[in-house]
């Protein structure tokens, strides 16, 4: 290691710490919050739909799939025929 390298070693390592943490925590927050997120979304979507017409809770499916590169949120709402006809 050069003399200059010896001098700067340990300098300005704080920005590295900050950046590493920001990337890591973004990932970890998604993982930790993920288990509940799909359930919360399902509840809230159901509540919104229920304001306008009665709906069977089994007809709203919320799926959260996490991949390394891409994550998908799939919301499948089966509309009851009768409710649509009335509106």
């Amino acid at each position, binding site marked *: 290691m050069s003399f200059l390298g010896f*001098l700067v070693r340990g300098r*300005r390592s*704080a920005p590295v*710490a*900050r950046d590493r*943490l920001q990337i890591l*925590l973004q990932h970890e927050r998604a993982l930790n919050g993920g288990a509940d997120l799909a359930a919360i979304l399902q509840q809230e979507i159901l509540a919104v739909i229920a304001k306008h017409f009665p709906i069977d809770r089994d007809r709203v499916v919320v799926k959260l799939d996490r991949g390394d590169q891409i994550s998908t949120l799939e919301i499948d709402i089966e509309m009851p025929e009768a409710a649509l006809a009335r509106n």
Partner: protein
Amino acid sequence: MSKVVVVTSGKGGVGKTTSSASLGAALAQAGNKVVVVDFDVGLRNLDLVMGAERRVVFDLVNVVQGDAKLPQALIRDKRIDTLSLLPASQTRNKDALTEEGVGRVIDELRESFDWVVCDSPAGIETGAMMAMRFADLAVVVTNPEVSSVRDSDRIIGMLDSKTLRAENGERLEKQLLLTRFDAARAARGEMMTVDDVLEILAIPLLGIIPESPDVLSASNVGCPITLHNPGSAAGRAYRDAARRLLGEDIAFSAPRERRGLISRLFGRKAAA
């Protein structure tokens, strides 16, 4: 209206017990009736840090299990008469704490004290969960260091999901107490700055406790630093944090160290 505060961090060794004792003492010095509760069953230390280790007769587990009455287990501080300690058991493990029992003890403490300060054990298991369960607000103790910040982030997630308040859809206030902070090193880019940590954790700042040999001196003699050395930088920082808890608007003094180029170079060489 009494307030239940949990002092928590996830990671061990960041200063939860020191901070519980110091904040508790500072709140009591400001005239409030305060009890500090040690939840670290099996590894109790709050008694030692507060200088009451020879006065422990009954403990939290005894009260939770109904083997002792609360007044029998409470130890009143000899220096500040509005400050009390409820020690943890040294011989049991954390599974001796039941949610129902802890809830009952906290309710009883609320009746006699303005502030109930719960010193959480490290980790995310039963002891830590019980310490945070009934909290109205949380003090998250963090060192400006990667593993501490990561663990604090995890604990903040738990405060938002596993506490009674969170489950009831109520707000649980969380505030950051940054301990062992070295302003000079942060200014040189060797340590994350206050703003770095605040930006990552995204909770309001309660206080910045500077790295200081006075903190060890205080725990050596079993006296909270706000009492042992109130004029020290760390003592003043804890007192300011306690006053912010009490709702006072206290500016954060910037303890930045101004150093010239020569002293910076010299300092770095000496430290390397």
